[in-house]
């Protein structure tokens, strides 16, 4: 089975890149390079180290922001899911955050926190955190009553019920939220580099566009997507290791 799913992944990648190559050769637009040109640019940037210095910049707000969103997002989500009061207090904030047009908020952030790392981290958090919080809290709220009841019947303390029943039961939905949140965090990191100050990968995109070096621009975009996909795969592996039995559906009769 895993072999077959790997095969399907490779197949869909080949189709996608093939379509890209053809669209580039037609060409769809003079600003749209072929797949091979973009890859050549990526190899060149890797060889001369540009891409590494760029990522050294981009990864800073990304990693800090994603880490904060994961830890804080899950913690707040648990709280909100467990207590009516916190639900009332926090839920509206995250619903507004998720709906807010981020581009409109960036000037406000810059005004308040300047153009440094803080603003960029905040952009990543605003993108990543709401979906993590909202998924976690709804998963916690939807823990099957019968499992919690079983816990109480066998004398589990409140803490044990949270740690040994609610969190594992909620984990598939929490991880789904993490996947969505982290993808949004990647978008946030690039967005902040495009809208606040051009640094890192955002700088490559902005600069190569201004000098019409489209292959480099697409190479940079491709690299960030690749990184995101790799990261999400890693997350999936972590989930499998942590919660083995949750993988397959559980039918009770």
């Amino acid at each position, binding site marked *: 089975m895993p072999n077959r799913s790997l095969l399907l992944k490779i197949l869909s990648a080949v189709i996608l890149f093939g379509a890209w190559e053809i669209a580039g050769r037609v060409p769809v637009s003079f600003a749209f390079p072929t797949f091979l040109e973009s890859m050549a640019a990526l190899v060149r940037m890797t060889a001369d180290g540009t891409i590494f210095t760029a990522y050294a910049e981009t990864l800073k707000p990304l990693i800090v922001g994603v880490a904060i969103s994961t830890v804080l997002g899950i913690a707040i989500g648990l709280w909100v899911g467990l207590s009516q009061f916190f639900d009332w207090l926090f839920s509206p904030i995250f619903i507004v955050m998720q709906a807010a047009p981020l581009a409109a908020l960036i000037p406000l952030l810059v005004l308040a926190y300047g153009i440094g790392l803080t603003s960029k981290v905040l952009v990543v958090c605003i993108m990543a955190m709401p979906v993590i919080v909202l998924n976690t809290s709804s998963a916690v709220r939807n823990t099957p009553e019968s499992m919690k009841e*079983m816990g109480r019947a*066998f*004398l589990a303390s409140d803490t044990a019920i949270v740690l040994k029943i609610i969190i*594992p039961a909620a984990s598939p939905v929490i991880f789904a939220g993490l996947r969505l949140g982290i993808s949004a965090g990647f978008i946030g990191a690039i967005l902040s580099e495009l809208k606040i100050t051009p640094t890192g990968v955002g700088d490559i995109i902005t600069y190569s566009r201004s000098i019409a070096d489209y292959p480099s621009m697409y190479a940079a975009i491709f690299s960030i997507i690749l990184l995101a996909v790799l990261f999400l795969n890693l997350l999936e592996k972590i989930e499998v290791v942590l919660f*083995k039995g949750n993988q397959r559906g559980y039918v009770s009769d």
Partner: protein
Amino acid sequence: MVMSQTKAAFGQAEPADYESAVSARNISKNYGAVEALRDLSLEFPRGQLTSLLGPSGCGKTTLLKIIAGLLQPSAGEVEVNGHTVTGPGPDRAFVFQDFALLPWATVMRNVAFGLEMRGVAKSEREGIAAKYIAEVGLSGFEHSYPHELSGGMRQRVGLARALSVDAQVLLMDEPFSAVDEQTRRKFQEDLLALVQHENKTFIFVTHSIEEAVYVSDQIAILLPRPSRVSEIIRPSSFRSKGVDNIRRDPEYLDIVDQIWASLRSYVE
């Protein structure tokens, strides 16, 4: 105090001979507008098995959960060994009608869950759990997950979990409903042996009249919602005649008929 409904029914037995391990007194339970139990009183003699028999939805699970301390009654109180129940306690263990297993935990961890919550060390609790896993016939499945088991096997995991905590009172909500007929008969015999050899009190919910008569020292028949005890039957003579002869015993057959006669009016 014992209500007139049970007094009348106790007429056929001598209640004074038995000390109660569990007493339910004037229990009422409403779920919003639904009245599940109304003024139900019942004594559960120590060291014996009491069956609750009644139509679906009449409140058997509700009564069991009130005794377990998982639900608060709207009125009335439950005493276990002379103490009023305010919540779950180490003196009671529950076998759930819907099994309530943890899907991410292996059979071993599920069975050992109660011991884990009681703070028993890992190696010790796994030893105890392994014993009960073997007892319910699941040896070799210790490291399987619930989704890899059949319905009947899952039910046995729930049974082993309740047995492993060694509680004085076992609350069993249709514990054999999903196992096959052969296993069911074996479990019924095992249960009889358990009742005989251990001084535990069993409260047993079932839909099967034959099963109730076969395993019980006392059978309480519940009326449909709002539920109260309509009749208490104490099979007396055939228990001592040996496991193999019970199903042929005239008294056994009479009681089965008698219960069916009182229940059929609710089916029609």
